[in-house]
């Protein structure tokens, strides 16, 4: 399929997720020192009300990225038309920097897991994902970004690596990538591959954004790392971030993700400054 959607211009900057606990500060007199905010699309895909009004007010101050969790581009049964129509309405209203979601599936025709479930890395799944992305991008009238997931199991029928899957997906659909560095770390530890191999196997020219987040480490009883977004980013993930930033053609946007145990905004801004410092150090090198 020809890719008729306009390309996404790279945007360099450092941002945070907009969470309800920080609404007042983002709407206060003192500007919050971020270059963009990212919101969970589904939280604002309503017909009206306070959250949508607040998002519009924030949008008047800083660029906004719409990051979804329920598109389910890996579903064998296709996309949910209601979800897609509401997402388009929100995107038309907010005019975001871009719209993103995850390489995963969340639902069957009967049920929704409300979790980002892993896909078998097969040609069949790749075909389904690409068909769904084509439909989504066509409906939205724009190219999208898709994020590499954290995962806790792999499938016996896997035919390729995740980076090969993402590369083929981007090449076939013209979509872009949202590189979650923490997810690479989590998956590499859970499945026993080198994070550097993953990074170098990706089409890095398609990366427009990076996510950084904390995770729940493995324990003796549970030898699996879980992507929780409930704590600070750990040093090995910062190291991987620096490595990724050195490989990716700049500019690229970086964001700290926090969805649970939301700390004071000042803590997140301090963490974001660490990303700025890491990126700045690369420029000086």
């Amino acid at each position: 399929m020809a890719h008729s959607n306009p390309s996404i211009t790279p945007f360099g900057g450092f941002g945070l997720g907009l969470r309800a606990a920080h609404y007042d500060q983002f709407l206060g007199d003192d500007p919050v020192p971020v270059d963009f905010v990212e919101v969970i699309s589904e939280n604002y895909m309503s017909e009206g009300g306070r959250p949508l009004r607040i998002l519009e007010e924030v949008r008047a101050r800083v660029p906004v990225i719409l990051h979804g969790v329920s598109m389910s581009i890996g579903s064998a049964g296709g996309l949910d038309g209601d979800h897609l129509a509401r997402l388009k309405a929100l995107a038309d209203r907010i005019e975001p920097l871009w719209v993103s979601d995850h390489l995963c599936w969340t639902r069957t025709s009967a049920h929704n897991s409300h979790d980002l479930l892993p896909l078998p890395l097969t040609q069949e799944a790749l075909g389904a994902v690409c068909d769904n992305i084509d439909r989504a991008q066509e409906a939205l009238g724009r190219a999208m970004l898709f994020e590499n997931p954290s995962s806790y199991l792999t499938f016996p029928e896997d035919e390729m690596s995740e980076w090969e899957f993402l590369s083929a997906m981007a090449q076939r659909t013209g979509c872009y990538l949202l590189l979650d560095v923490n997810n690479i770390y989590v998956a590499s530890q859970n499945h026993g591959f080198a994070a550097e191999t993953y990074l170098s196997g990706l089409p890095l020219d398609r990366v427009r954004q990076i996510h950084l987040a904390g995770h729940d480490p493995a324990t003796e009883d549970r030898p699996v790392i879980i992507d929780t977004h409930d704590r600070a980013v750990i040093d090995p993930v910062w190291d991987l971030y620096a490595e990724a930033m050195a490989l990716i053609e700049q500019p690229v946007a970086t964001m700290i993700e926090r969805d649970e145990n939301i700390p004071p905004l000042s803590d997140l801004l301090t963490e974001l400054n660490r990303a700025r410092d890491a990126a700045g150090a690369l420029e000086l090198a």
Partner: protein
Amino acid sequence: MTPPPSPLAKRQADFMKAILDEDAPLPEGWGNSHTMGLSVYRGNYRSALMGALQETFERTARYIGEDAFRTARINHVIANPPSHWTIDAAGEGFDRTCAELFPNNAEVAELAWLEWAMLDLVGAPDEEAVSPQAFAQASAQFGDAQWLGLGLTFQTRATGRLVTHDLTALWQSLGEPGADRDLRGYEEPQGCLVWREGERPTFIMVEADTARAFDAVQKGARYGDLISLIAGDGADEAAIGDAAQKAGAMLGLWLSEGIVTGFSA
């Protein structure tokens, strides 16, 4: 004849079944190495839904206590696995779950219904209300036929029902953890109307007739139908006159509360 599901569709159906049902067999080709990963996905599924219900039904939780609320949530999630793209929808029907679990405490289901109705209004369309002044001006020249044929439009997701307890007293007493509950039962059911005042969901207790009339208007009843409904079958002229006055008072209430968003005569 329905074609067999594709390998991907079958894999996803089996995976979903394994998440929803801990007793389901492991999907084909999976061994012990998959059990740990599957348990993470099962845990994520349950904690996400339990958390969503906790957030939506804060007062119901305070009223029945943590243990009973946990049991109610587990029952609800097992009986109503989610199918909608938004997790907020997981709370739909939780009042029915409560009604089944607490058959001798109707107030539990009534409180859960109210919390759900309030949440549903948060993202409802922003609609401009018809002010009492604007309506008075527009209806000043109405004749009998126009009054009898008057149709009203309410806020899209405003709702109402009959309840057996004073939900205002109960709601207010459950505003803070640990406060004494204020449970007052009615001898006869009363009405509860829920709508949005600006951006804020709100509710009031009203007479049962008002709630019935509200429901009838939402189903398309005209002003004349309301008067007939209130007066009842075989009403004489005096009863019809009383009913007309009551209908006028209801209309005044709905207008002054900002629930009416349109009308046609």
